[in-house]
């Protein structure tokens, strides 16, 4: 299933390319190797060659950088190692600040230049660490679910209904509309709480007639999402097992809260309700309504259900 995540939701690997931690690691290797291999020339270059401890400090910095590189290149806890680099930068800047105070002339100029360079590296490191952390949290937010229902119709009938994506709002309660732009691409509009809408474009990326359909939102969507539905013949001539896998990554912040409300506290229950409606539409022709649940199935609505008596005329 983890494979499906990355196959279906490549957006999750942005906004940070997966190579960012490695790039930082290589930077560490270069700096560390330089400091270890040629402490003398580096001390001169940075204007620190007059200090008796410069060589020792540079060797220490080199060891630190190499250790950091190993951590970053290992691929484990990339955010943690990125912040370790930032900590190293702060240490370097502190040392350089003290060195700057008691030097003059050409040496002072070199120390200042070095400080400037390290400050630039620090900025890059901070930015990278922040972005790596964001990406990791986005991946952790991805909501995955698998729900299935048995429908007393053939796989071909169930597939045909689902493949016409404009049918989806008939049973997916949170959808306002789906417009098919062509055979693959479509535009989806979901209605959220307090009149807020969420829209996105999606494409069918794999289509196996009468067997399965796989779709995902196009890159750039604020709520990356993807899904796959499989139509498996149910044993004993009982129709079709409709098996759905869904993934979506709600963003952080206000929009994320809207999306969370859209799907409620039990997103899986809502998908289960959707599939129950899908079964009703295929088997009975439409969503079944009662006076207490005039909009049909919705576990979310149960608490606010109206009494089981006919709806007033103006409600129609």
């Amino acid at each position, binding site marked *: 299933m983890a494979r499906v995540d990355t196959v279906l939701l490549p957006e999750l690997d942005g906004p940070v390319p997966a190579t960012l931690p490695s790039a930082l690691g290589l930077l560490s290797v270069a700096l560390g190797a330089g400091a270890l291999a040629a402490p003398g020339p580096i001390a001169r270059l940075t204007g620190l060659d007059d200090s008796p401890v410069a060589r020792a400090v540079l060797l220490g910095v080199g060891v630190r950088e190499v250790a950091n590189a190993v951590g970053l290149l290992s691929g484990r806890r990339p955010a943690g190692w990125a912040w370790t680099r930032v900590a190293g930068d702060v240490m370097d800047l502190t040392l350089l600040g003290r060195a700057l105070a008691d030097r003059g002339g050409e040496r002072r100029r070199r120390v200042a230049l070095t400080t400037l360079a390290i400050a630039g590296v620090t900025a890059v490191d901070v930015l990278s660490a922040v972005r790596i952390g964001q990406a990791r949290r986005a991946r952790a937010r991805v909501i995955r679910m698998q729900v299935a229902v048995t429908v007393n119709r053939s796989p071909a009938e169930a597939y045909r209904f689902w493949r016409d994506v404009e049918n989806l709002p008939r049973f997916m309660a949170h959808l306002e509309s789906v417009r098919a732009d062509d055979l693959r691409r479509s535009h989806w509009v979901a209605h959220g709480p307090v009149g807020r809408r969420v829209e996105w474009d999606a494409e069918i990326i794999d289509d196996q007639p009468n067997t399965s359909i796989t779709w995902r939102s196009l890159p750039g969507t604020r709520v990356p999402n993807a899904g796959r539905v499989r139509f498996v013949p149910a044993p004993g001539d009982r129709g079709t097992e409709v098996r759905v896998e869904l993934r979506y990554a709600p963003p952080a912040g206000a929009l994320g809260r809207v999306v969370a409300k859209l799907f409620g506290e039990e997103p899986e229950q809502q998908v289960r309700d959707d599939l129950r409606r899908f079964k009703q539409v295929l088997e009975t022709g439409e969503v079944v309504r*009662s006076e207490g649940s005039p909009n049909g199935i919705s576990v979310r609505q149960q608490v606010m*259900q109206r009494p*089981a008596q006919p709806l007033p005329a103006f409600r129609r």
Partner: protein
Amino acid sequence: MRATAWMGTDRVKVIDVPDPRIMNARDAIVRVSTTAICGSDLHLYHGYIPGMRKGDILGHEFMGEVVEVGPQVRNLAVGDRVVVPFPISCGHCSSCQRGLYSVCENSNPNAGIAEKTMGHSPAGIFGYSHLLGGYAGGQAEYARVPFADVGPLKVPDEVPDDQAVLLADVFPTGYMGAEMCDIKRGQVIAVWGAGPVGLLAAASARLLGAERVIVIDRFPYRLRLAQEHLGAETINYEEADVLDTLNEMTAGRGPDACIDAVGLEGHHGNAAMYAYDRAKQATRTETERPFALRQAILACRSGGVVSVIGAYGGFVDKFPMGAFMNRSLTLRTGQCHVQRYTRPLLERIQRGEIDPSFIVSHRMRLADAPKGYKIFQKKQDDCTKVLLTV
């Protein structure tokens, strides 16, 4: 229109509500001519069924005239006189197609809630809690009937309402209770409960060839009905020990099959036994008072069938699993799959094989529904079955 509404424990009221309208293409609207109060309505009345809301319209036994049909209903026409089965069944899911109408997979819009307590959801039922769909019931001037192309049965003019309305629930339910006993020649059938369903189960056992039928209750007027109309033997459990008496009557074998037509609000001859389950029920540590079920299992002949048609809602304590397992008993049960039985039972009525209306004790106006509930609850005035005419 006027309709009977549940207003809280032990409170029903006839109130004004909007007229029903077509909500689904397979709906019909029926102008109710006769409706009935069911023993299971008393479970709602007493507040034992969860998922009731103030203002819910009650009633799952009704018949009347079709006054409007949805665009997908082709088998009914305005003016048809129909009786409506109490389970709402789509006719197209696997369960309906196997004749298991009361476990229709599509008719409960609140299935998700029912699944949480029952594992899977049964069918929706008219006027029987939001757990079972939140459908308005038929103790009203008009009723909306979903899947009208599946459930309602046209009733010929010569069959009066008094007989036909019993096809909505109690007669098919009693009949299925007897049918599940798989009655063979010479068999003795015992029925717990001489309410409408128990009496019609006893009558059906006779129709299906039982040699002897024994009815167990505590109200002499009801036991008298069983004797006079069905030629049944009777046991008043407040006067005699049921197990001893049944053993005596069957020379130690026990009845070949036992029908529990009591359900979750049973009574017991022994005050201490009654108090035990009543207290547990009151504190919600048990939802049912399963005296009849326990006794039926202990009484039944080894290898026999226990057929449960009394309504249960939750969990029972002290289920005699040891007796049940060690003596090779079979437990059969279910809300009645009414749609299976309406036509054959109507034909039996038309052929004069049975007149189920012997159970009807009271006919009242819809406006008197609260009084009907009260006398049925208190077993006043020899009440067995209350019909409400609209």
